[in-house]
């Protein structure tokens, strides 16, 4: 069977690429420390020596649109083009191409359907910065095949938070039962408190530092019960109007497991939002 060698949850800050590659007067004062933190985070994936990456993210109205909106979707294709014109325009992100691990996509779709998740699929999926940002930060050589998993945290009505956790648990079970000798890492990105297009956007910190503190505590201690008891679709409006992206972190807590403390935790308080990086090594006593 395949081995789950790392579980990684991260924010996906689209400005990292531009900040980390800027030079001279263009380079923001927070860039050097940010690069240092990301390099240390990257090492936690490198050490796990993965062969395949399952990448959990959320399309930001690029390919998935309101005339045909899936709640949970798995890409099944041999290749994925990535990043879009408006991401190039606003964030300076490069166009990318990734290889797909199509047999794992096939397995997750069939077994996921049979496990009670009516998953949508796409045979031609252009992915966006929710998945390319962690490639840029964690695997910039972009040399590993991926399986993209998209969740709807963006266009209500949304699935309940517990459904994200359940999907995370199911993804873990399926990765670990995949008849293969591959080493698999599951990487998912979301947000802590975040406001986009509202009065609290682009402040000196995230819009709700108290929520961020609690969120980091829930994730780093694997406190799914505490998290699920406080987080609802309604409650997530309060920390910021884009905070439903936190449910992708909850999905990753589901992958990591109830009560499972993260083996690596780091945060970085930036303008607009707090960066947060977590790694679990699930099957080797906390070692890669």
């Amino acid at each position: 069977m395949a081995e789950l060698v790392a579980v990684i949850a991260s924010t996906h800050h689209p400005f990292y690429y531009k900040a980390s590659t800027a030079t001279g007067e263009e380079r923001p004062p927070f860039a050097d420390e940010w690069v240092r933190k990301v390099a240390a985070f990257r090492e936690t994936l490198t050490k796990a020596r993965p062969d395949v990456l399952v990448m959990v993210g959320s399309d930001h109205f690029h390919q998935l649109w309101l005339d045909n909106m899936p709640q949970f979707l798995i890409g099944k294709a041999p290749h994925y083009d990535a990043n879009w014109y408006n991401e190039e325009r606003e964030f300076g992100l490069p166009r990318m191409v990734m290889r797909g691990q199509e047999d794992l996509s096939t397995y997750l779709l069939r077994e996921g359907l049979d496990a009670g998740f009516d998953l949508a699929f796409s045979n031609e999926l252009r992915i966006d910065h929710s998945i390319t940002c962690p490639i840029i930060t964690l695997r910039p050589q972009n040399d590993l095949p991926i399986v993209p998993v998209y969740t709807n945290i963006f266009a209500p009505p949304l699935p309940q938070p517990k459904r994200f956790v359940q999907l995370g648990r199911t993804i873990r079970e399926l990765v670990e039962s995949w008849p293969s000798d591959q080493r698999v890492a599951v990487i998912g990105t979301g947000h802590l408190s975040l406001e986009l297009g509202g009065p609290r956007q682009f402040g000196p910190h995230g819009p709700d530092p108290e929520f961020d503190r609690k969120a980091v505590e829930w994730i780093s201690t694997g406190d799914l019960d505490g998290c699920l008891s406080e987080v609802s679709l309604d409650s997530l409006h309060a920390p910021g109007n884009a905070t439903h992206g936190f449910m992708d972190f909850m999905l990753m807590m589901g992958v990591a497991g109830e009560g499972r403390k993260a083996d690596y935790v780091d945060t970085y308080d930036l303008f607009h939002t707090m960066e947060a990086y977590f790694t679990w090594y699930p099957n080797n006593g906390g070692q890669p």
Partner: protein
Amino acid sequence: MSKYLLNKFLFTVDRDPELVERYRDDPQGTVQWWEETEANRILNCHTGESSTWLRFDDTERTALSTHDYPRLFELGAHPFLTLTLFIAMFERDHDEPLGFQLEYARRLSHLSLPYPDIAT
């Protein structure tokens, strides 16, 4: 009222570099053209079919035609779509980093929770 159609306008303009410039330079003309020729086009579908029933009401048409992004927020347009398109059009007019984004927040500062429902 059609939050869906507001979003469809923002979505289709935002993804087209020429339309972004056209909407910046001539909002009223662009909205009129779009409503007449594009509003009923079914996206993610081949071009031979279209819908027949989609149109703006006067409030929506005026908000789009005057670049009134606080009003679009109040009408429940998706904030991410509005923000992304308006950054593309107007960030260039500000010298300071994040100058437009902060002005945008200020112009919405009269709003408090709960925000308008964005469900479509």
